[in-house]
Structure formats: structure tokens, C-alpha cells
């Protein structure tokens, strides 16, 4: 006759093996189902067919957490309220951002109506901190249509845009137009200036 403790060990070992086998089979089954759904093209990637709320929540949460983690080590410059910076950012915003994110007094554009996910209307404010906004403007966002402006613009120019974004929700249509007109250089002039090496060198964020 076996000792009772050995018998108990065998029983619990056998149960553990069953649990592991069940987990492995479940995992393989889930993978096979997911692969079949992908192969059959079941997921609708059309931009005029919005995600269901759970999928939207998942994508949004992934995006928010990803941006928050990656932006946490960035330090914002202390002069984001500088009027010159804001005016410079306004000029760039009008050129680079307004066709998707719109602006005070501006009607919805064809591109803003067709993008999915919709580009947020930034005149309504943003939940992002300045460093998060900088990160998004610089690196862009996959599968949203948001480009990585850091590929073509230096950090200083992008901080100007962030400075303007902090001011944007306070502006009406006339104030917005006045600010855009007060930009020290046009976007093309700024780009030329940057290419000639007049833009300041900045740390990599």
C-alpha cells in the first residue's frame, strides 16, 4: 500500500497536467480562430466603418498609454507662453495642421470628414500635456493619418506648434487669423531657414 502523501502528489500532478493541456488547447484554438478571421478578411478596415466601442476603447487606450510612457522623459521649454513662439506656431499650424484639425471659424474640410479616426478639433482643447503633444507632433501616430513632423522639422519648430496649441482654445476666428498673419516667417521661409542651418540644435526626444 502506497503512503497517502505520495498518492496525493500523483493526483495533484495529474490535475496540473490536465490544466496545462487544456490551456494549451485553448490557446491553439484561439490562435486558429484569430488566424482564420484574419485570413477570411472578416475585420473591416474601411475608414467609413467605425470601430465598435470596445475596439475603439482598446485602440485609444493603447495610444494614450504609449504616448504617456514615451513622453514622460521629455522636458518642455519654459517659454511656451512666449508670444513670438505662439505666433510662429500659428503660422505652422495654419500650413501643416488646419486642414485636418481645423481652426476657429473654419468649416470642416473634405479630409477632416473622411479621416478615421477623426483628427481631433484642437480648438476644443486637448487632454494631452505639452510634452505629450510634442511627442505626437514629432513622431506621429500609426494608423491615424497623423504624420511624424519630426522627420522634416526640428524640435524648436515643433515646440512652437505646441506653444500655439496651448493658446488655440482661447481664440475666436478673427484672433486666429490675426495670429497667423503675425507669424514672423511663412512656413516655406521657416523650412528654408532650417535647411540653411539657422534652426537651433536640440536634444533628441
Amino acid at each position, binding site marked *: 500500500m502506497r503512503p497517502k502523501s505520495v498518492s496525493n502528489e500523483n493526483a495533484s500532478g495529474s490535475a496540473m497536467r490536465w490544466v496545462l493541456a487544456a490551456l494549451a488547447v485553448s490557446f491553439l484554438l484561439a490562435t486558429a480562430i484569430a488566424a482564420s478571421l484574419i485570413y477570411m478578411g472578416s475585420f473591416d478596415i474601411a475608414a*467609413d466603418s*467605425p470601430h465598435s466601442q470596445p475596439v475603439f476603447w482598446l485602440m485609444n487606450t493603447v495610444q494614450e498609454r504609449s504616448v504617456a510612457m514615451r513622453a514622460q522623459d521629455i522636458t518642455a521649454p519654459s517659454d511656451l507662453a512666449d508670444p513670438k513662439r505662439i505666433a510662429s506656431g500659428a503660422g505652422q499650424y495654419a500650413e501643416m495642421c488646419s486642414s485636418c484639425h481645423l481652426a476657429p471659424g473654419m*468649416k*470642416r474640410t473634405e479630409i477632416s*470628414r473622411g479621416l*478615421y479616426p*477623426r483628427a*481631433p*478639433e484642437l480648438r*476644443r482643447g486637448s487632454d494631452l500635456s505639452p510634452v505629450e503633444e510634442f511627442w505626437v507632433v514629432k513622431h506621429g501616430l500609426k494608423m491615424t493619418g497623423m504624420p511624424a513632423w519630426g522627420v522634416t522639422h526640428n524640435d524648436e519648430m515643433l515646440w512652437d506648434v505646441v506653444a500655439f496649441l496651448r493658446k488655440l482654445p482661447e481664440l475666436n476666428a478673427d484672433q486666429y487669423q490675426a495670429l497667423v498673419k503675425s507669424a514672423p516667417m511663412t512656413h516655406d521661409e521657416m523650412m528654408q531657414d532650417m535647411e540653411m542651418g539657422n534652426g537651433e540644435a536640440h536634444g533628441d526626444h
Partner: protein
Amino acid sequence: MRNYICTAKLVFGILSLTALGSAPLDVAFAHGDEKMECTEASMNAMTADVQAMNDGDAKTTAMKEMQVAKDMMAKKDMEACMSHMHNAMEATEK
């Protein structure tokens, strides 16, 4: 003369009622330049707009209104559907 006026009024009245009766019920409104109707395409466009809103009371209201609009559409009550879509649209513009 009096009979003539009465007949003219009657004819005018009948014509007006006929015109009103035959006019299609206006179950569409504009969202910006976009014509919104109780159709799947308009619902999708409005849902995308609502999803893009910042979190807050207005977004919660808009989401609830869209859900009711979808329920009404499923029940083929187009007027109620439009009414709730309109409420959702107003919430998106707050």
C-alpha cells in the same frame, strides 16, 4: 362674384393641401456641410465624430443619443432616429 371668390379660395386650399401632403417629409439635417440622414453612412460618420470628442458630459450624451438613434433605426422609426441623431450632433458641437 361672391361665388367666384369662394370657389377660388376652395381651389387654392385644395392645391395647398395637395402640395403639403405630397411634399416629402424632411428627415435630414446638416452637420457642417454634410447632410445627415438616418442611414448607415450618416450613422457611421456621426459615430466617428462622437468617438473623436474629448471625454466629458457632452461625449457621454452624444454616445447615448447615438445608441438610441440606432435602436430607433432598427425599429424603422426614422423620425425618432433623426431626432436623436440631431441631439447627438448638437452634443458634438458643444
